[in-house]
């Protein structure tokens, strides 16, 4: 019962975070969702749940579920690390683009018709005015 509630809460929190706009928030959401599923895998090997997978003690429990979870955790961790690397690189690229494009922009604004530059101001180059550094469309 308690594991079912824990799984449900982890999944709900994960999905809520995935629905948010920020990329890092989505990564954390994915992490929580991954843990919800790990818990699900552990509880899936239902019959001899409480026993350790050791043969001489009592009825050997099925080691398959534990092997699954181990693999799933490793893969999930790798995916999260990759996602964080993507987030980091993206924010650097974005900042670099802002630095590169700023001087010609401001030069154009001061020298030429000031009315025309309003439409393609500095937020447009990121395709749709994102605010936080970690946000992706």
């Amino acid at each position, binding site marked *: 019962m308690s594991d079912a509630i824990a799984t449900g809460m982890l999944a709900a929190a994960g999905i809520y975070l995935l629905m948010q706009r920020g990329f890092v928030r989505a990564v954390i959401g994915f992490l929580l969702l991954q843990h919800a599923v790990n818990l699900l895998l552990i509880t899936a090997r239902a019959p001899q749940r409480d026993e350790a997978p050791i043969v001489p003690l009592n009825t050997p429990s099925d080691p398959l579920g534990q092997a699954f979870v181990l693999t799933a955790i490793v893969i999930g961790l790798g995916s999260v690390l*990759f996602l964080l690397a993507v987030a980091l690189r993206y924010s650097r690229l974005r900042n670099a683009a802002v630095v590169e494009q700023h001087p010609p922009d401001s030069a154009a604004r001061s020298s030429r018709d000031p009315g025309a530059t309003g439409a393609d101001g500095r937020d447009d180059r990121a395709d749709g005015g994102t605010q936080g550094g970690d946000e992706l469309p």
Partner: protein
Amino acid sequence: MMKTQLLLIAPLIAPLTAAGIAALGRGRRGLQRVASTVALVVVTGAGTLLTLRAVPSGVVHTVIGSETALTGIALTADPFGAALVAAIGLLTTVAVTTTAGTGDDHHPLQHPLLLVLVGGACGSFVAGDLFNLFVMFEVVLIASYVLLVLHGGLRQFRAAAVYVIVNLVGTVLLLAGIAAVFAATGTVNLALLAERPTVAAGAMPGAALVLIAFTLKAGLLPFSGWLVVGYPATRRTTMALFAGTMTTVGMAALYRVALLAFGDAEVLRTAVLVVAVATALLTSLAALAAADHGRVLALLITTQVGFMALGFGLGTVAGIAAGVFFVLQDVLVKTAVVLAYRSCGEHHPPVIRGIVTASFAVLALSLVGFPPLAGFVGKALLVEAALEAGAVVAAAVALAASAMTLAALLPLWWHITGNRDGGGEGTARRLRPGACAAPAAVVAVAAVAVGIVPGWLLAIAGAAAEVLADPAGYAQEVLGP
């Protein structure tokens, strides 16, 4: 016995070993190309031998690491999986040749990643249980994530964000489905699942989750956004490789797992049929409206996925055979269309330009389904099977989607005959025109040949359909009496 084991492991081990070698030999492009070539020859050869064995005998299978299928790693190759291994070997060879020709493999990690992708794809085609399938999916996906952002500009990273998140959610769904199936039936082995009833064991929710994850990976409609956003952002040859492998991995899993393990779940098949019809119709409509040519190609790839899933959705032996035939010819044609389109350009000498244009024309017509090309045979079989099964709407949509595919391809044709650049992200540095044009031309000739003499491929498809439509026979074959 030993030889069977070797044949089944080779498509997995050869690319991964070569990937290691290529990763160690970073900066030596000659070495990397040799490693890729050797690995791909091994994959294609092993796939061909497996197909030759599986077509008469039904299933080629082995267990690694243990004596019984319960505790070891089960590898099983039905005719479909075996033929797909060979097809992936061929299409990667085609893509790698073009990559080398355009100089797109200048990044030291291009070859290793590509080989990992191939290894994972082959592994997923011969995986004998659900969990190994999941692991292989991850191998393919992680390699593809990195390939996507390898030459990363802002656009690539923005596309990768959508691509990665959607696919990871798919992975989580798959894992949850596997857990639910495991809880209900106590096993994840395909043969054991084939033996046991799905509905009566209460494994339906799990089976549905697994199927949703597969349709997501295959790029069927509610989930095709990642494909349409992700593919156009890739470099020219990477997109071709993705077009051939990524959706095929999901589609092959759909056919193999859903038919064998959850064969008695009629409801799920019907749901997939509806989704497939909607995909074919709506994505071809969207392709008509799309302005960006990369987007048109991505949407048309999704349309083809709809056709592929049609055969599965019908569920009859004729439908499955038609679907298998369609998948096997389509992976190569799709890859070559993208290659031909993206390797065109004004920097080629006139003869090469002519060859590229001609092969694009042939391949595009095969995609549409003109006789006497391979695509025509595939679509004709599908429509016939749909009419036979009483799915008149599906048949009508298939015809309409084909017509819209033709219309959507016309702007690309005008573009390519106008001798403009293929719109890839790459530059024209160190171009070898021969290597750019030859692979697509070879596939174009093959498409004509298969269209005129389809008998051998039909035999493979027929054998595959017989295995896939008979889960009990499959279980008996793999588990022994």
